[in-house]
């Protein structure tokens, strides 16, 4: 009973937040609706006993990524309400929801049709709080991450360095002094 109540409340948070993101004209309100959705997903993670991912969801998504969004919105001053009435491609306004409902409907139908199908897996077993102590989930996840996936884990550090360096190059202002020096030296840039 309590699980059902948690599921219903968290799902309501997720769906209300998601509709807020796509329907609110103001980007700041959309970003705050996104926080609601991400918290709902984190509640679902707790209900599914993925405790570490629930914490990471709140810290990384609701903390870092949404703050980054709000920071860029404020930095660029685009926090004015968008006029949702004007649409350069009017056909897309009607086809967009059709595509969304179609995708959700197809996936939903596939889920319902295949729900009683049993799939044989070589499951390694999920440590639960009852079987392996209060930090079972984080220990098991760490063991998986640093043994089976250690190469991929190291590669993500390369990815993050490339992302940071690339963003600094993309977003910096053009160097005036360097351009003037090049101009004086007769180098066409």
């Amino acid at each position, binding site marked *: 009973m309590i699980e059902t109540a948690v599921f219903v409340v968290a799902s309501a948070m997720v769906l209300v937040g998601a509709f807020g993101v796509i329907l609110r004209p103001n980007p700041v309100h959309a970003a705050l609706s996104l926080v609601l959705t991400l918290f709902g997903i984190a509640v679902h993670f707790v209900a599914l006993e993925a405790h570490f991912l629930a914490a990471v969801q709140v810290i990384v998504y609701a903390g870092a990524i949404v703050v980054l969004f709000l920071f*860029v919105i404020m930095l660029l001053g685009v926090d004015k309400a968008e006029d949702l009435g004007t649409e350069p491609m009017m056909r897309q306004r009607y086809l967009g929801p059709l595509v969304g409902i179609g995708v959700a409907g197809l996936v*939903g139908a596939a889920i319902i049709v295949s729900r009683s199908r049993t799939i044989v897996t070589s499951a390694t077993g999920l440590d639960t709080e009852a079987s392996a102590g209060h930090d079972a989930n984080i220990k098991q996840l760490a063991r998986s991450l640093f043994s089976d996936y250690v190469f991929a884990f190291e590669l993500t550090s390369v*990815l993050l360095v490339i992302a940071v360096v690339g*963003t600094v190059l993309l977003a910096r202002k053009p160097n005036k002094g360097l351009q003037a020096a090049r101009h004086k030296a007769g180098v066409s840039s």
Partner: protein
Amino acid sequence: MMLAATRPTETWYLLLAAGLFGIGATGLLVRRNPLVMFMCVELMLNAVNLSFVSFSRTFDDINGQTTVFFVLVVAAAEVVVGLGIIVAILRRRPGATADDIADLKG
């Protein structure tokens, strides 16, 4: 009472994830502000994460949760690069929408 006996199964979570993915896809196609389009991509990524964790529970396997960890890392990198591009574009042309960037194509 029948409701008291029901517990949320993986089918419920997967249906919710499908709905969330559909909402995100709709928003991506309908909205014109590049920042809000990015938020819709985040919605779709979260829908997939929810289904991964749900499958991890169903099949009793930790690998689903490990995958979600990597999705989180890649999503963070994607947001950083995407917002860098948006800042670079909007600094030159304030108020640009996603359609204005179509001028870039050759």
